[in-house]
């Protein structure tokens, strides 16, 4: 018989028709009716023609990470497999390009390291894992929930910690799942931006933001405590356009960041003293009469009081001494800023992660307001916006089962995405505890104590504060369930882990808190292994709950992520984007139809007075100074200041674990000023121990004058196979504001202190 060559076989296998006729005669004899010993494969064929042949199919996706840029993605799929991704060309913000993280998504989906099956650990941290079927997993969880209910008479012993691992709107179905079970305990608030959010709400009645795409209209831009070159790479082109149009770009930051390197001028401010610097500028502008008298008179209240405060308590020399910026220079930038029209400040989230963060943001707002730059295209106190988030929150808004018992008293808000606001006189409510003090709250909460913790879209043990305390708190928990994609430091300490889909494996919808584009996320590929989306997990749990105790969960027992995505739209949202149906988003992302690129352009504010409030009684009612004024920073508790900001290779604990990322960034460093290092005999590349009252971190040192002499800098992140965790050095002290809009104060991530020695 003639030998059939490898090449022939491969050619035959390429084509479904030749492939199937290849052994055709043989199969016709019905040889496949019985397959002795064959356990898994089944007779019959899937439609391979469709699955494996043809060119690229493209799908619309949206990056759901907690990021300014929230990119619109086009994914290229061949033979049912995601091959590569690109930025959507339709969005003038994403403009066809993704960042280093976005470009690594294919690896994230097909990494052999992904969590593949529901599994149970016999003893937290023991690494003794058993596989569970989804039914077994849901059964164990459901029984635990029912046991808690039986023991406590309520489900307040069941707590949810969920934040920004995915901002896909249907992922609020996790909160929905909790509501559908009853009244539970919610870890509310956010470590991200709450102090500034409250500040802007006190000043203007809402947190609105100029379209970043109008930056080129600005004549003077101060990027204050933000590092877009790392954290919003797609905004840089607009800053460059402003520079090319003649605007001056000033960066104010304690660290010489990548953005600072691209500025016309970099001003190194002493960490946490941004308020003092801004007040000095306000005083100088006041003295020179360079403020916008008409605007202030027509559209604000409390300015005279503010002016009086400035004259009494603020001098440029005081500001210089506090902020470390030479007085002459404070005067110079103050004059330049006041005389440029329009001028704008990009207020970073970093600069409000302080015990005086909210107060400082109010001062920056005031600086922009008194110079008449609020409501001007190209102007504005740019912080963030949530105008484009007017979805139905259909997945989130689930009803508690009949007769559920819960927390007695007022509730809410439960985080910044809880638009239902404060509900007075409800019979029962969820119990809310501070997400930024998760460890302490779990340790302290009583009657009933937190018995069970559900973690979704979050990596508590690498991102939450005071990790040593968190480990203690975990010992108090009877069951920890974690839904995630990779075996991170929280999964290590879980009892049950559930594999969740990547956004390429589910339908979703995403808006940005920065730009004004709306992006649909289509399912591009089948979920791998046994991964389920968060709402599919909720449905599976509901099914089991109702089998064990009919009526114990109101969540639908079957969901379709596409239907649920469609359910998130309403006319108001569609109108805002000028589309008649969400299906239009399949043609590409769309941008909100804004009457002006600048909010407040009509000079009417959402405050009680309808004016810009330099003096806010609402602010006072919330326990802060009514008037915009200086607030002291946190006293040092160790020799050096410690900063733990974002890395460009990661968003919090995501992406850095991928081997593709390790090709470009393989290990964490602590960055030390050469003089500070010299005093401690530390050389470039030396192994060091950074320590403070919270704990210690061992890593290698890099010497650079990019950081001030009094500062240690390390970038947060989770490295595969490394113990590195900067939360061993960060305590959970609160920032001043945040409770008003998010239900809990923010956290002073950058008011931390430590010392370093050679290891």
């Amino acid at each position, binding site marked *: 018989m003639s030998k059939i060559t490898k090449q022939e076989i491969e050619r035959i296998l390429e084509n479904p028709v030749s492939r199937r006729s290849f052994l055709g005669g043989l199969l016709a004899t019905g040889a496949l009716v019985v397959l002795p010993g064959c356990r898994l494969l089944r007779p019959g064929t899937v439609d391979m023609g469709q699955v494996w042949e043809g060119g690229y199919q493209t799908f619309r996706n949206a990056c759901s990470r907690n990021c300014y840029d929230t990119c619109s993605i086009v994914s290229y799929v061949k033979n049912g497999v995601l091959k590569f991704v690109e*930025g959507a060309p339709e969005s003038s913000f994403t403009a066809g390009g*993704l960042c*280093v993280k976005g470009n690594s998504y294919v690896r994230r989906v097909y990494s052999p390291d992904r969590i593949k099956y529901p599994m149970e650990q016999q003893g937290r941290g023991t690494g003794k894992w058993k596989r569970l079927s989804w039914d077994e997993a849901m059964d164990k969880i459901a029984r635990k929930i029912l046991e808690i209910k039986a023991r406590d008479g309520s489900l307040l012993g069941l707590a949810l910690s969920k934040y920004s691992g995915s901002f896909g709107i249907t992922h609020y179905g996790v909160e929905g799942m909790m509501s559908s079970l009853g009244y539970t305990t919610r870890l509310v608030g956010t470590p991200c931006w709450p102090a500034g959010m409250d500040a802007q709400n006190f000043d203007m009645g809402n947190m609105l933001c100029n379209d970043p795409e109008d930056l080129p209209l600005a004549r003077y831009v101060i990027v204050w405590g933000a590092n877009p070159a790392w954290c919003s790479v797609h905004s840089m*082109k607009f800053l460059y356009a402003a520079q090319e149009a003649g605007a001056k770009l000033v*960066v104010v930051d304690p660290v010489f960041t990548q953005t600072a*390197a691209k500025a016309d001028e970099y001003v190194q401010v002493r960490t946490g003293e941004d308020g003092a610097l801004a007040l000095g500028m306000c005083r100088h502008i006041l003295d020179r009469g360079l403020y916008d008298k008409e605007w202030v008179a027509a559209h604000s209240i409390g300015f005279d009081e503010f002016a009086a405060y400035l004259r009494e308590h603020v001098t440029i020399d005081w500001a210089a001494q506090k902020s470390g910026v030479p007085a002459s220079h404070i005067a110079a930038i103050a004059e330049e800023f006041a005389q440029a029209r329009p001028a704008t400040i990009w207020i970073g989230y970093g600069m409000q992660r302080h015990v005086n963060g909210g107060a400082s943001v109010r001062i920056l707002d005031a600086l922009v307001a008194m110079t008449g730059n609020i409501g001007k295209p190209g102007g504005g106190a740019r912080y963030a916006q949530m105008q484009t988030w007017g979805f139905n929150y259909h997945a989130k808004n689930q009803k508690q089962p009949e007769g559920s018992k819960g927390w007695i008293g007022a509730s809410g808000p439960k985080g910044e995405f809880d638009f239902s606001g404060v509900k007075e006189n409800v019979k029962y409510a969820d119990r809310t505890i501070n997400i930024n003090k998760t460890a302490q709250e779990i340790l302290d909460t009583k009657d009933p104590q937190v018995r069970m913790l559900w973690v979704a879209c979050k990596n508590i043990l690498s991102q939450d504060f005071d990790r040593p305390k968190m480990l203690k708190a975990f010992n108090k928990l009877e069951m920890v369930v974690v839904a995630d994609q990779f075996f991170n430091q929280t999964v290590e300490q879980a009892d049950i882990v559930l594999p969740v889909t990547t956004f390429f494996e589910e339908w979703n919808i995403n808006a940005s808190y920065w730009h004004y584009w709306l992006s649909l996320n289509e399912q591009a590929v089948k979920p791998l292994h046994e991964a389920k989306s968060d709402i599919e997990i909720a449905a599976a749990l509901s099914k089991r709950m109702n089998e064990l105790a009919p009526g114990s969960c109101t969540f639908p027992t079957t969901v379709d992520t596409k239907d649920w995505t469609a359910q998130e739209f309403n006319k108001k949202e569609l109108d805002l984007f000028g589309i008649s149906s969400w299906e239009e988003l399949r043609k590409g992302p769309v941008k909100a139809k804004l009457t002006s690129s600048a909010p407040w352009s009509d000079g009417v504010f959402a405050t009680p007075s309808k004016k810009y409030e330099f003096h806010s009684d609402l602010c006072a009612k919330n326990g802060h100074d009514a008037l915009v004024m200086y607030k002291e920073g946190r006293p040092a508790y160790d020799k050096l200041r410690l900063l733990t900001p974002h890395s460009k290779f990661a968003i919090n604990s995501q992406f850095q674990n991928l081997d593709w990322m390790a090709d470009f960034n393989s290990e964490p460093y602590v960055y030390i000023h050469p003089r500070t290092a010299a005093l401690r005999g530390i050389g470039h590349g030396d192994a060091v121990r950074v320590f403070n009252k919270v704990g210690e971190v061992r890593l290698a040192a890099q010497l650079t004058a990019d950081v001030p002499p009094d500062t240690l800098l390390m970038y947060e992140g989770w490295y595969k196979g490394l113990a590195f965790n900067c939360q061993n050095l960060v305590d959970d002290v609160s920032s001043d504001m945040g409770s008003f809009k998010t239900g809990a104060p923010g956290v002073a991530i950058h008011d931390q202190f430590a010392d370093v020695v050679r290891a």
Partner: protein
Amino acid sequence: MKKQLGFYVDAKRCIGCFACAMACKNQYHQASGVVWRQVYPLKEEVYPHHERAFYSLSCNHCEHPACMEVCPAAAYTKREQDGVVVHHQEKCIGCANCVRSCPYGAPRFNPGTERAEKCNLCWQRLDAGLDPACVKSCPTNALRLINLATFNEPNAVQFPPGFPHMSRLNPSTRFRQAELPKIIKPEDK
């Protein structure tokens, strides 16, 4: 002059974000450890701040490519139509002579396939009328595709400090150098 494609590396706009380098992996899925495009930080003797200015480099598609010159197996060709230097895997015998000989370290040895590989300037994408993956992904337009026959940028330099000066090879990459902001710092006590 004949058409010669190359990269324009605008270090003034470049933020060292590595999007280009990862876009290359996104497109070609190189084995981990193998990178065709690297983002090199400028040492402090060239730019005075640690890791704040960069050159994003892959293959420079030289007029006289060292790789092509030294490859004993003639696994390299330079395309007539656009001067792109293409490495043909199937012809490569894995002697690594190109890896040793390219002063820019563009060809890399893949221990899996035991062959050399490098940036081929996405010639398949070019032929389909698309930009190279790295260029398309650059969020600041700091990495551009240029044709030296028509390229006319007064500020452009061929051998900036930090880029090996190899005039005989005549690399097709052009640069704009990074600039420094005015810096206001507290007086050191």
